[in-house]
């Protein structure tokens, strides 16, 4: 195991991307993802990579589209308002079956909102990152170590399924420092991209990277094929952590930053003899249906905790499907809930 170092979450994301073989980073300044771009701007030139500060989020995501369409691993990062701007490019990337890694270090919204940590972009990330029928794979780290670990996975998943992958983080995880280690993995294995537009060299017919289908039936066929791929992903790639759920009568569901607070609350509640557990979705899309389903036999009540007005709670309800009541507790606007607040909610449900 490599030595543990203290690193900000944002820096860990950047270092992990470099270690995953990403040599092209395109970004536009926004708080609270700042350290990620700064790290890239410092490190990339020293390793023959590129940090390019784009003129806008629109430009940055489309530079990613171009670089990835030309066959190379590329990444961009932003925070909530910037992701809204990137949504156009993300839709085109999905529609062109191009891999890409997009980091969202969430802050409060809507509008300019606040710069404090938030989870109010869950719907945007999992349901509506842009126009049209498509999905992103969405990974939600909850520690700085996971920030580091998930970036390589995101690039691999993107290449495996030829689609964009988002890491949905937030200002707390981005700004905080925790010990992190980068295990020696050697040179990353980057799959060939025979479909890439990088010059045919007279050796093959021309490649076209495109999202336009003027015939409705052609587009339908393409989208249906893409959804077959999504079905495989739903089956193969779900990930969640289940904590003290074996006998849990109250199941708390929380991801990312809020899951950390929820875990503290669960520990306190257990100390008081309450049978409570935590399911922490790691993939937000595909939603970890199986992990929730596994709690149904013992669960009498569900509590979803988010730093929003309640977004993921809808997905929890879809899985639970009326078999138990699902309630919600959240703080929004950039306010981080306290363990005490969540403990109070758990106690209310235990009465």
């Amino acid at each position, binding site marked *: 195991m490599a030595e543990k170092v203290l690193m900000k979450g944002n820096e860990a994301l950047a270092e992990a991307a470099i270690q995953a073989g990403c040599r092209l980073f395109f970004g536009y300044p926004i708080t609270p993802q700042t350290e990620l771009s700064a790290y890239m701007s410092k490190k990339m030139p020293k390793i023959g990579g590129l940090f390019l500060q784009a003129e806008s989020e629109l430009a940055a995501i489309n530079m990613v*589209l171009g670089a990835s369409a030309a066959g190379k691993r590329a990444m961009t990062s932003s925070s909530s308002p910037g992701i809204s701007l990137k949504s156009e490019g993300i839709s085109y990337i999905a529609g*062109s079956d191009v891999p890409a890694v997009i980091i969202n270090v969430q802050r409060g919204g809507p509008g300019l909102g606040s710069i404090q940590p938030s989870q109010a972009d869950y719907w945007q990330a999992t349901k509506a990152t842009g126009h049209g029928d498509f999905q992103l794979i969405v990974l939600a780290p909850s520690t700085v170590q996971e920030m580091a670990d998930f970036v390589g996975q995101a690039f691999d998943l993107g290449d495996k399924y030829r689609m964009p992958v988002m890491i949905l983080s937030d200002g707390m995880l981005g700004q905080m420092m925790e010990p992190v280690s980068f295990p020696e993995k050697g040179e990353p294995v980057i799959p060939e991209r025979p479909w890439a537009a*990088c*010059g045919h060299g007279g050796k093959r017919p021309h490649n076209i990277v495109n999202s336009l289908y003027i015939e409705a039936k052609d587009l339908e066929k393409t989208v249906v094929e893409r959804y077959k791929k999504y079905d495989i992903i739903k089956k193969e790639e779900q990930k969640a952590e289940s904590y003290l759920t074996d006998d849990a009568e109250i199941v708390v569901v929380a991801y990312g930053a809020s899951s950390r607070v929820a875990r503290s609350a669960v520990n306190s509640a257990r100390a008081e003899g309450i049978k409570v557990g935590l399911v922490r979705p790691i993939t937000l899309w595909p939603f970890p249906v199986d992990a929730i389903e596994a709690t149904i036999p013992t669960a009498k009540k569900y509590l979803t905790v988010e730093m929003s007005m309640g977004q993921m709670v809808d997905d929890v309800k879809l899985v639970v499907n009326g078999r138990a009541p699902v309630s919600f507790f959240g703080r929004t606007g950039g306010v981080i809930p306290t363990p005490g607040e969540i403990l109070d909610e758990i106690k209310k449900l235990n009465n």
Partner: protein
Amino acid sequence: MAIVFEKPHALTDIPFHYCPGCTHGIVHRLVAEAIDELGCEGRAVGVASVGCSVFSYNYFNCDMVQAPHGRAPAVATGIKRAQPDNVVFTYQGDGDLAAIGTCETVHAATRGENITVIFINNAIYGMTGGQMAPTSLPGQITQTTPYGRDVKIAGYPIRMCEMLSTLDGVALAQRVTVDNVKHVNEAKKAIKKAFENQINGLGYSIVEVVSTCPTNWGMSPKAAVEWLENNMLPYYPLGVYKDKTAQNSSHTGDGSSDKPQKGGEN
């Protein structure tokens, strides 16, 4: 019998969908001829932009990427930075380059992004059915300026070559047209030069082609050419606005310094 003319190799066999009298066909051929003559089809990557010419990805024989509306310069930047040996060109209309994508255009240009840009200025949105373009002339009747472009409401047209010529990153900014044989030959030379500049690493090269849109102008192809000559060319004078390869270009000043400088200390 000797072959005196044939379709360039860099064009596919797919017939163009363009309207009769549309000048896209001529410009496509000129681009393809330049690619053939420079022998760079195998390493060329084109970026098709939103508008009538989006289907150019079917017509050019090189690898092609289709970009969101206005973002062709950003997509081309990504391709070129990922694969610096590729010869990357965008093919953009006036709505794409001078309205929704002005920001991307200006910044790709000022970065000196080493790409070639073919800019079709026909003063109208073709694909959506003839709305006002950023380059529509004052008084010009379009679907969205049914009483003529009123500059008090809609403002004035943009002269992109003139504007871009002020930027240090631009290697070539030249306006041409294809209304007659002489002009077609000049356009060909300019387009070829724009590709050569990229191969020589000189930076952003743009060739603006003043073009017709008979369908949306509501004219016969012949009348459209006459309207172009009588109305477009006076507003958009042909010529070289910037050329880094020429000795006495009017904008050769390069006041930039490569030395790191801290803000506020100079």
